[in-house]
């Protein structure tokens, strides 16, 4: 991974120095090794803080909404899964494609610090990834962990190594194959009784503190102004007044991103309450696939979404239960 980081840094320098781009969007060092943050670098000096390691899970594409409107070109590093969001945003005219230089970068699956901590390791100082195993160095020594166990939730159902868009690439090693298990948890919930499902979501959603982290990170939630902040919508609400509104918020959010959500998994990654929000979006994705044919948002940067198209023989809503046309 270190070689990838060096190569990225080198390329970022070239691009800024030559004036080809006015800024580079990537990650910069955080307070700790495990909390790098998205950042925009405008000078070579600023690149001193540049970092790309196993904790750079953040999807950077949403930052382009602002960046692409600025003077000069913006270069951005996109992992395979981020490239879907990029396309989706181009499709929705939220970013100006011509102003962007996409550098497709290698990703071996990103790590979840919470899962590492859960293994009893704290004060992580460095992580060495080697195939299926990971060596975690901390102030208290080195531990070898099985990578599969400490992957971010979203990386445990990786969409695979194909970038949907790129202007150039920095890929030095073979990347992992797709893991086609993303509907397993949804199916598990579907198999429950209504009561069990209600109890499950009740328990999960009542943890919601309406911090809006999910909304802020979501590349599909890119509205200039959210419907929940729109007084004309009739559902304007600043905070949860009661238990219903927690549900209302998440139901509407999931519906609004249905057919547009690329399943990047950022919502669950950033949720401070660890609510498995991706399971809401994946239900829509699963039903769309089952009822209207497979669709992956962000596979292309044009065309209609399943909710803005139809066929004359679509399934009737009353017969659609289970998400498969009867």
């Amino acid at each position, binding site marked *: 991974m270190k070689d990838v980081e060096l190569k990225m840094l080198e390329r970022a320098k070239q691009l800024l120095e030559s004036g080809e781009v006015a800024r580079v969007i990537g990650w910069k060092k955080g307070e700790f090794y495990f909390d790098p943050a998205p950042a925009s670098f405008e000078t070579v000096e600023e690149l001193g803080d540049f970092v790309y390691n196993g904790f750079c899970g953040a999807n950077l594409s949403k930052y382009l909404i602002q960046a692409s409107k600025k003077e000069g070109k913006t270069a951005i590093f996109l992992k395979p899964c981020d490239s879907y969001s990029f396309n989706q945003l181009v499709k929705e005219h939220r970013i100006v494609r011509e102003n962007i230089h996409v550098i497709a970068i290698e990703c071996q699956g990103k790590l979840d610090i919470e899962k590492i901590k859960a293994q009893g390791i704290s004060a992580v100082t460095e992580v060495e990834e080697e195939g299926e195993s990971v060596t975690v160095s901390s102030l208290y020594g080195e531990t070898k962990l099985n990578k599969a166990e400490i992957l971010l939730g979203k990386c445990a159902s990786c969409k695979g190594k194909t970038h949907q868009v790129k202007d150039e690439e920095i890929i030095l090693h073979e990347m992992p194959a797709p893991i086609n298990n993303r509907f397993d948890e949804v199916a598990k919930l579907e198999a429950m009784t209504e009561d069990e499902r209600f109890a499950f979501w009740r328990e999960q959603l009542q943890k919601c503190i309406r911090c809006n982290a999910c909304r802020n990170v979501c590349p599909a939630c890119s509205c200039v102004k959210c419907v929940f902040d729109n007084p004309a919508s009739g*559902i304007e609400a600043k905070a949860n007044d009661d238990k219903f509104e927690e549900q209302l918020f998440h*139901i509407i959010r999931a519906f609004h991103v249905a057919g547009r959500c690329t399943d990047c998994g950022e919502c669950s990654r950033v949720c401070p309450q660890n609510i498995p929000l991706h399971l809401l979006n994946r239900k829509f994705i699963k039903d769309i696939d089952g009822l209207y044919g497979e669709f992956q948002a962000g596979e292309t940067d044009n065309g209609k979404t399943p909710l803005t198209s139809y066929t004359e023989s679509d399934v009737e*809503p009353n017969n659609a239960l289970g998400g498969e046309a009867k």
Partner: protein
Amino acid sequence: MQEVTTKKKEFTPNIVAFCCNWCSYAGADLAGSSRLSYPANVKIIRVPCSCRVNPTFVLKAFQQGADGVILCGCHPGDCHYVTGNYYTRRRMALLFNFLNYMGIEKERTRVEWVSAAEGQRFSAVMNDFVKTITELGENKRLTDLRVKEGE
């Protein structure tokens, strides 16, 4: 008829029906002029097209204490606005499936296509829906608890 022996007032559900102006609302009018009865707890809201019904309206109805929500529109292919109800069909199939995924009874939500000529059908659909919801009982899961306070 058997007397109801329980003291508790029998549960009469509160039903919101969204009807498109061109077909289903006219179908409801025809049910009326043909004197085809259905329970008084069905209240109709007129919308230009079933595609005007936002999921937020459905949720709002439940939040405010509705026990069942039904959408009625022109039959697919007959939409006054050509394609409106095709979008409704997809939206509501996904939304209702999703609500069920959240643990909401599937029977509480329904979409029916009723043409302006189908007064009979309108009445039958409403009778059936009220029956279903009555059997299902009160909506407790999607209600803003404050709405029903003081009952």
